[in-house]
């Protein structure tokens, strides 16, 4: 029992407490110290344990949040398992909040009695260690994935970067310029793509997807499906003869379908790896059974029609998920023509149309008739901030990219008019507000505050009708091109991926961080981290920052050879467990699995399902224990027996 100088001793009559505690069953030795946490105080505990051959220790002192670790080390020094210690908090919860000795003393006795009742039910717990496989898996080869992969690799660890598309680069590669500096997106991205490809510690797996994820932090078992490229990457030199000779065409996804590509293709000239892939659905050889031009012309003999999907099984210690986003499908907006008007396009389509390497060679021609638009209307918040048809959240990037696109338009074609319909202009970022100001002041973009109610064709033009709420009047603009700032939404397969890896996602299917403020890049599954827009709408600077943060988390994890597991985890009494699985949904970490055990019943051996806790994933919250009616699920360190004993002891 600690006096804590006079902090405790002046309010709690420790002699009286000692008399009461000495009488308790199982208590064999009580002593007081002036400062228990001091060297001599700790030495006294060690001596006491040795002298009285103690196997449980209660320290009545300050909050366990203060010195539990200290005293655990102390009792360990005396050869006792550190978890055979309990703290009675008689300072923060007693002497500091009560003024009268008559009040504080009986309370301190109760707290000690509870601690004693608990500690005799404590069992030795041991931390186990799990080895860490120092290889990271990064899923998604956009800017987030590239940045995370580069940072982890630069920290000296092996990285496998898996990308679904034939090239890395992601959305950022599709953009023309970037706000607020108007750098050319490709100019700043492609060097990083090349770095990633050439980094000795990074292995690129493009045109590949995650098939299955098992295991846990430090030891994930991942199956990756490498889709058949129909081109032997090891041999191909990327010379380009194949795609120049290929006779089949298909809309180019990279250009949002606005341009065409061949059936054997690279998505864009700076693609990494610079190795083509055959789109079997559109390839004459695969659809009609004859052609094979590419194979004939390939000087390296790289074309391989027989190639099959390949399943790779790899072990990783950590996973960074950087799967990015999709754009909201505006065809649910009937008032904007259900996506049927060709000249109502998305922001991303605008990027391709205005990009020098885009389908129009950088000349802004409208999709319907190739005419050069003179009046362009930008509509913001399409699918975002709209609970009725889209999502209630703010898509965060649209204000800035609309401003950018309006500027680009006015810069390239000063004779064209730009109108922007907006609800609010949100510019919280370095240099963002200034950028927006430039759009309105320097580039003369017309901002109209109001929602667009309807877009309808009139002749070869589109009438955009909306309200200008600042003027309080209806406005109608006859536009040549309408650009919808469609919201960033979670990828359609996001939930499936989250389930496959085993972490949670929110109602919009964005991935959920472990804590919205303090653990923004972790998921609640240990060893799985998030980067970029898969966690929520994000612009490039934020994405890169989060990617680097995730990389640091991975590097931190890899700085150790072994991980110590928390010993205070849930545990299953298999004899009692019914295998009903009701514990499972309460676990935020997916730490509970079901396994089949065999046992003897009478004279036969029968199998039976029981829950099992993955101690690498369990964080010890104990939610599962309450879901378990039979009490088969228990939490080490806070067992049902211990808590009930505390309750009873306090109530005496």
């Amino acid at each position, binding site marked *: 029992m600690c006096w804590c100088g006079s902090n405790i001793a002046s309010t709690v009559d420790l002699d009286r407490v000692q008399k009461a505690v000495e009488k308790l069953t199982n208590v064999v030795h009580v002593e007081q110290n002036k400062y228990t946490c001091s060297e001599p105080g700790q030495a006294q505990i060690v001596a006491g344990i040795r002298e009285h051959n103690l196997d449980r220790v209660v320290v009545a002192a300050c909050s366990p949040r203060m010195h539990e670790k200290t005293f655990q080390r102390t009792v360990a020094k005396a050869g006792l398992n550190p978890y055979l210690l309990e703290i009675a908090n008689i300072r923060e919860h007693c002497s500091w909040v009560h003024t009268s000795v008559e009040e504080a003393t009986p309370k301190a006795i109760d707290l000690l*009695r509870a601690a004693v009742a608990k500690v005799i039910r404590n069992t030795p717990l041991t931390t186990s260690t799990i080895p860490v496989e120092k290889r990271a898996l990064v899923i998604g080869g956009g800017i987030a994935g590239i940045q995370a992969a580069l940072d982890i690799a630069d920290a000296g660890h092996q990285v496998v970067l898996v990308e679904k598309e034939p090239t890395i680069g992601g959305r950022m590669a599709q953009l023309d310029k970037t706000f607020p500096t108007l750098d050319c997106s490709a100019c700043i991205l492609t060097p990083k793509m090349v770095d990633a490809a050439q980094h000795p510690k990074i292995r690129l797996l493009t045109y590949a997807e995650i098939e299955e994820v098992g295991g846990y932090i430090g030891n994930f078992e991942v199956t990756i499906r490498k889709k058949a490229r129909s081109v032997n990457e090891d041999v191909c030199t990327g010379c380009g003869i194949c795609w120049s000779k290929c006779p089949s065409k298909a809309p180019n996804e990279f250009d949002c379908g606005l341009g065409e590509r061949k059936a054997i293709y690279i998505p864009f000239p700076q693609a990494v790896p610079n190795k083509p892939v055959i789109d079997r659905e559109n390839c004459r050889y695969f659809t009609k059974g004859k052609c094979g031009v590419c194979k004939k012309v390939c000087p390296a003999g790289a074309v391989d029609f027989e190639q099959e999907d390949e399943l790779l099984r790899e072990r990783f210690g950590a996973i960074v998920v950087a799967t990015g986003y999709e754009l909201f499908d505006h065809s649910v907006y009937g008032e904007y023509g259900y996506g049927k008007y060709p000249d109502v396009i998305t922001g991303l389509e605008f990027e391709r149309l205005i990009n020098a390497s885009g389908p129009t060679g950088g000349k802004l021609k409208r999709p319907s008739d190739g005419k050069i638009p003179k009046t362009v209307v930008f509509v913001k918040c399409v699918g975002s901030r709209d609970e009725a048809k889209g999502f209630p959240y703010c898509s965060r990037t649209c204000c800035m990219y609309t401003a950018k696109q309006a500027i680009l338009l006015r810069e390239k074609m000063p004779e064209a008019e730009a109108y922007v319909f907006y609800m609010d202009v949100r510019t919280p970022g370095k240099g963002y507000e200034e950028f927006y100001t430039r759009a309105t002041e320097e580039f003369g973009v017309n901002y109209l505050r109001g929602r667009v109610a309807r877009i309808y064709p009139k002749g070869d033009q589109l009438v955009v009708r909306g309200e200008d709420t600042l003027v309080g009047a209806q406005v109608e603009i006859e536009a040549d091109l309408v650009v919808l700032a469609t919201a960033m939404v979670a990828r359609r397969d996001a939930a499936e991926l989250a389930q496959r890896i085993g972490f949670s996602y929110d109602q919009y299917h964005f991935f959920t961080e472990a804590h919205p403020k303090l653990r923004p890049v972790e998921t609640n599954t240990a060893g799985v981290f998030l980067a970029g827009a898969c966690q929520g709408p994000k612009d490039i600077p934020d994405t890169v920052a989060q990617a680097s943060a995730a990389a640091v988390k991975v590097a931190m994890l890899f700085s150790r050879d072994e991980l110590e597991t928390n010993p205070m985890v849930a545990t299953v009494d298999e004899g009692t467990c019914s295998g009903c699985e009701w514990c499972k949904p309460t676990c935020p970490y997916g730490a509970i699995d079901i396994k089949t055990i065999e046992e003897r019943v009478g004279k036969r051996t029968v199998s039976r399902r029981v829950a099992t806790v993955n101690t690498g994933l369990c964080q010890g919250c104990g939610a599962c224990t309450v879901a378990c009616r039979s009490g088969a699920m228990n939490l080490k360190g806070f067992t049902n027996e211990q808590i009930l004993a505390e309750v*009873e*002891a306090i109530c005496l």
Partner: protein
Amino acid sequence: MTKVLPQGKLKDFLKDTMDKYSLVAPVREDGVVVLKPTADPEAVVTDYLNTVTSPKDFFFPQTERMFRFQKTEGKIRVEETTWQGKRVIFGVRPCDLGSLELIDRVFQEGEYEETYYLARRENTTVVGLACSSPGPTCFCTTFGITPGSPEGADLMLYPDGEGFVVEVLTEKGEALAQQTETLLEDQDVDLAEVKGRFEGLKVPLGDHLSVDGVAAKLDGMFEHPVWAELSPRCLGCGICTYLCPTCHCFGMTDEVRGDQGVRLRCWDSCQFSDFTRMAGGHNPRPTKKERVRQRFMHKLNYYVHRFGRYLCTGCGRCLEKCPVGLTMVHVIEKVNDSGTREVAVNE
């Protein structure tokens, strides 16, 4: 001359009783008639076939505190519980009267006397109530008990016309009769005739059911397939044993609060899955088959060997309340019907 308690004086009889005794009597509560300590004669009813719970509860209570213990200064002080008081249990049917005699043997005969039980027995006066109209679940006559059997009562009431004909059987009964003397009228009633009338009442089920030779037959039926056939439908609940006026299994448990506590003796039921489960987890009666067999073998064979009588009085509670009809009648019939030859080999 015979003593008669007029119907209109019944409440007064109970009131007078309460002057000297605490009263346990049938009370209707939420649709069931239970035996219960009561201080309100108005609440007492007589229009029941039988009470749901049996009088054994008041001699061999479901939870009996045997002693308290306390640790003081390193020593343990034990304070035994002694039951005191004078009590009357009113309205006990002949079958239940008979059951008391059966439990008496268990707790009284042999080397050890069960003092807790006996203290209650000695200090309790049992007022029996003969049955005017035996019900469809009654089969007391199977065991030689009749709707008018007074054995086990201290004072017996026979409903007759506008009152109850009173028969005093013991000293305790006499004392009660004196206590309530002013209410008892001397009338010109032939007690033997009244008794004979009750004894002759038809008990349809009991009159047709015979246990002759059942005990002997069961000697060879421990491994008989009938148990496997009967037991699957058992729910493993304690309705039969807890309502049964003759079941008397118990377990001991300590309730400890800090440095003091009590030792409790609580009813147990042979139908519970943890009945006879040992500390290590082994249970010699692992399935319902063994447990169902235990119950009926105990009643129809083991007890008979030890005390010469069947441990059942045909009260019919198991017929009335067992949710799956696993009743004494059903089992006796089964045993009667089964050939003893087909003794199954232990599976």
